[in-house]
């Protein structure tokens, strides 16, 4: 199977005056396309920083990150934005929907950015899949937390990403809603054949992925 994400000797160091803080230290791993993986670890272990580097939201201090054959280190902000739009989908703990857009418009944005035509039926179809076709014209504030996360799922899959990054996708949801959202996430992922990278400290959720990377103090521990 092809490798979609490859990290070699990746470190992230923050400098504050004389002091340096090593958040990630010499991280090496790769992910095969269409596989599922969890990054787990306690709070402050560097999980979210690692996700930011993998998804091209941030730059490493040293080492290389290669996403779908593209080396991210040398790219500028706009080139990174293009890579994200082309290959990457996101799901966040706090949903991160645009508050001024309806559910349907939120799902359409990644497609509109690509300049694609006739996107409305596709976006509606995705909303239908997450069970929100009836709420397509509602604004985020008119939706519950679980509904917002389902819109977020539809948006994440709308540009048919090669890789999907989910940062604590159930962190803000109750147990029952979490279960529904997780089921949807895995079903859609399977259907689309997308690589899934989950960041969580919920070990039960992590256990649903094919592979788990444990991180502690900025290092992979197993």
């Amino acid at each position, binding site marked *: 199977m092809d490798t979609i994400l490859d990290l070699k000797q990746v470190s992230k160091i923050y400098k504050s005056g004389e002091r340096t803080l090593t958040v990630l230290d010499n991280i090496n791993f790769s992910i095969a396309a269409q596989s599922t993986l969890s990054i787990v670890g306690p709070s402050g272990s560097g999980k*979210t920083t690692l*996700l*930011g580097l993998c998804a091209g*939201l*941030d730059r490493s201090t040293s080492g290389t990150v290669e996403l779908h054959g593209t080396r991210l280190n040398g790219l500028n*902000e*706009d080139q990174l*934005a*293009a890579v*994200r*739009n*082309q290959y990457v989908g*996101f799901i*966040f703990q706090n949903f*991160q*929907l*645009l*508050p*001024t*857009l309806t559910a349907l*418009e939120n799902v359409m*944005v*990644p497609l*509109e*950015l*690509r*300049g*694609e035509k006739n996107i409305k039926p596709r976006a509606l179809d995705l909303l239908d899949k997450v069970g929100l076709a009836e709420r397509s014209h509602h*604004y*985020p*504030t008119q939706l519950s937390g679980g509904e917002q996360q389902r819109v977020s799922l539809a*948006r994440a899959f709308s540009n048919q990403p090669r890789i999907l990054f989910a*940062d604590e996708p159930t962190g803000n949801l109750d147990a029952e809603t979490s279960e529904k959202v997780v089921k949807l996430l895995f079903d859609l992922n399977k259907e689309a054949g997308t690589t899934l990278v989950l960041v969580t400290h919920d070990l039960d959720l992590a256990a649903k992925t094919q592979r788990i990377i444990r991180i502690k103090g900025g290092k992979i521990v197993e």
Partner: protein
Amino acid sequence: MNQNNFNFPWLLQMAWRDSRKNRSRLLLFISSIILGIAALVAIYSLGDNLRQNIDEQAATLIGADLALYGNKPVKGKSKALVDSLSKTRSEERSFASMIYFTKGGGNRLAQVKAIEGDYPYYGKFETVPVTAEKTFRTRKEALVDQTLMLQYQAKVGDSIKIGEVTFGIAGILEKAPGSTGLTSTVAPSVYIPMQYLKQTGLMQKGSRVAYRYYFKFPANVDVEKLAKKLEPRFEAFDLDYKTVQGQKEDTGRSFRDLTRFLALVGFVALLLGCIGVASAIHIYIREKLSSIAILRCLGVKATQAFLIYVIQILGIGILGSVIGAVLGTAIQQFLPFVIRDFLPFELTTDISWPAIGQGLAIGVLISILFALPPLVSIRKVSPLNVLRSSTDAANPGKDPLAWVLYGLIILFIFGFSFLQMRTWIEALIFTGGILGAFLVLYATASLLTWLVRRFFPASWSYLWRQGLANLYRPNNQTAILIVSIGLGTALVCTLFFTQDILLKRVQLSTSGNQPNIVLFDIQNNQKEAVLAIAKAQHVPVNQSVSIVNMRLEEVNGRTAADFEGDTTAEQSRRIFGREYRVTFRDSTTSTEKITKGKWQGVYNPSSALIPISLEEGFANRSRIELGDTMVFNVQGTMMSTVVSSFREVNWGEVQTNFLVVFPTGVLEEAPQFHVMLTHVPDPQTSATFQQAIVRQFPNISIIDLALVLRVLDDIFNKIGFVIRFMAGFSILTGIIVLIASVLISKYQRLQESVLLRTLGASRKQIFAITALEYFFLGSLAALTGILLSIAGSWSLAKFSFEAEFSPDVWPVVAVFLFVSLMTVLIGLVNSRGILSRPPLEVLRQDV
């Protein structure tokens, strides 16, 4: 994928979608510039209409095709020239004289104009009754300015006495060609037929009379060309001329200056609004950071994210400018009422499309320009903010592009002022002045807020401390509010103080035993009788001065003709055309100081040259040095003089002051008249004394300083009204910025008040905190404005008017209380939702 271009349709769509929940707020931001745009459009429209009206009505301003002016009657060759110009002509002789209302017994100095012929040929005297304009010309009747009629409660049919002649009042003069409300306040006119002028007995030697000749030519005569051709001959006879074209240019120039000045005042209001917009957009963008980060995360380029908000601002800029232009066009309808006292013609208020175009262009450009510095920070928003929220990206101060934009803003202000003033040095001074004023206001505001915070008693109750602390909440607009409200306050206060300084100065000069009545044109044979009247009425004569009229013939052996064509002697040539009023005495007065040379008070007949003293400024302007020789013509007798001293003269005192002073022993026998300065203790004595003089000696003119004070006050009120009208735009802009700022920070306040209520604060306590916050804001703004206007007025008083500055306390306290309480009121009215909202609602509120 369509990532290599900006995808404009999508950007437009996103800008529209993103604005959905913010449209009322965006409109609120832009409302700050609406008034500024409205002011500019109104003034540009006024300028346009003025230009058009001047073009159309210029002929009615002089009432003829050509007017000739001189200060001596034409005779000999000059008469032949005047006679040869056109058969259709009129003559006017005007001079200042006392007029006496026989019914009420009032008297006042007025401009008497004796007229012969059918003048005006264009336009007409507007009189009540309308027929009076025709009838007075053939009867022993006069047209009397409406100001005088009102002041002395005279009616048509009453009589006035001018010199020795009693005229019936044929009609009330409402308007004469070229006259304005202001001229009728300063020098009200009375028109009489020329045939009765001689009988008045006022045409004596030494009287200051202006001679005017008005001509009408057949339509095929090119008057402009004719006047140009005859110019050297006019000059040779000391005649000035004016054609319709010349009048057009002169009037156009003065009103261009007025509209430029008003446009600059309007521009200040616009700038204030723009700073308000920039400050509001700064807060808006901070609130948008998470949305921008999400978009960046989804693949939006930095430039695209930036453009989404630029499009929004452009949209509201256009909308604001359109509203401003509509409002400006409406305001323009009222401007003729504001400046009617300054207009010598009828002003129309047609819609001016160029003015609207200019207003729209400036509005859009300036809203974008001022919004860009906070917007450029969008380019720096990292998509990482979706994972970890941070607000550190929105600091335009660290972005070099923001500094480029600040430079562009300064350049824009300079460019705008250059277009108004047409000289780069004045534009530079205006730009520097504006920046300086804002900086000083900002610095004063910052200093005051710092002082209040630093020295505020810690022992005061929580409500007071919380009210004060609210001024420093994150994203506060304290500084901009203090600057805008402070600037408005400063403008109005400075106007008030300046008026007060000048009026007090005149009042001071008439207090105590200082002279308050000036009598002039007293003939030699009337002097003793006038002194006797004064003595009989117990009116002390403070000063009696002899005046001799003379003309200058030569300077250092060179005549006016020798200076002709000498371009290097521009200033010197002008000193020949005028009549000099000269006195003689053996000592200097209390208002003079010798600055150069030696004062010689008595003429030594053995000297060939008479030593004279010149006023320093006059000597400098005329390029005359100590030791230069000057030959004066006194009624045909040549007087050779030498400049022996220069004097510095304080012209501000009520005194007779002179450019040229002769020593005693030379002019005693020359034809002369006298000026006397007296002090009357009360209005009753003043009226009786003036009546006695005017009845017995109608040729004597009287200046009553109490009247001058009234006239001055009237002029100030008229000018003040225009300035207050324009300052109103700045003040209203300040109020709108205040309302906008209150509404923008409403959600933040809501959360605070909910938190306080959760912790047990009563509605009354929250109300008190809010009121105190606005009281601090308003009082700091008022204090900033008042302090600046006191500093400004003090400088004006010291360096420009050379007068004492002692502002009255009560008006200052009144302004302070008014501005503070208005701010509290506006703040509370706009915050009322905060007090009544249930706490639970906030938990579900969308930011």
